[in-house]
């Protein structure tokens, strides 16, 4: 079994971070996480996966994401864990706001959201 724990780091680009707040489009995020799990489990016999993402405030040092993959085949477990993490970051509508020790706060928005499967590019409605 491979377990990934993603924890909140104490700095971003040299700026001390105190906490994050995560916000989500809950129905779409849950559906997306279920889709990832279903895809992974369909890809390898006897593989089981679970993904949990915290929402709301998460203090520095605490985990915000847990991905657990059990498989009789270790390579499959590692690969599925990584795939889950990459897809989670690209496809799932969860946003994070960094709250800095100096009082500021910023949304971290880096990559336009990908449609499911992460192969299609996101749609630019502009």
């Amino acid at each position: 079994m491979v377990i990934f724990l993603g924890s909140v780091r104490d700095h971003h680009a040299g700026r001390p971070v105190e906490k994050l707040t995560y916000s989500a489009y809950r129905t779409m995020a849950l559906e997306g996480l279920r889709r990832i799990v279903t895809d992974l489990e369909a890809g390898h016999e006897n593989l089981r996966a679970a993904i949990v993402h915290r929402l709301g405030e998460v203090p520095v040092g605490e985990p915000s994401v847990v991905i657990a993959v059990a498989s009789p085949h270790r390579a499959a477990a590692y690969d599925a864990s990584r795939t889950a993490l990459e897809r989670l970051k690209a496809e799932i509508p969860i946003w994070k706001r960094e709250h800095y020790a100096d009082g500021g706060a910023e949304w971290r928005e880096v990559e336009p959201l990908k449609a499911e499967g992460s192969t299609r590019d996101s749609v630019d409605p502009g």
Partner: protein
Amino acid sequence: MKIRLLAFATAADALGTGETDLEMPEGSRISDLRSRLDHDHPGMIPLWPRLAVAIDGRIVPPDTPLEDGAEVALLPPVSSRALAGGPW
């Protein structure tokens, strides 16, 4: 027709709300919604090039027609690339 508009992160900040109902003319498309939001909330204008728009939980192209009762969500970028080499 009436749509439910959801906005997240910077899009919610620009609209001043994360959730609102809007009355739109029959036959409106996402592009019409965009014009209206840009007029009422100019803070939206710079966001569109990197927004995804979902209708009822599916990301859709910009000229997609709206339907009565649709849930339209404005989805800013997520944080994947920053995280690729870095922080959660």
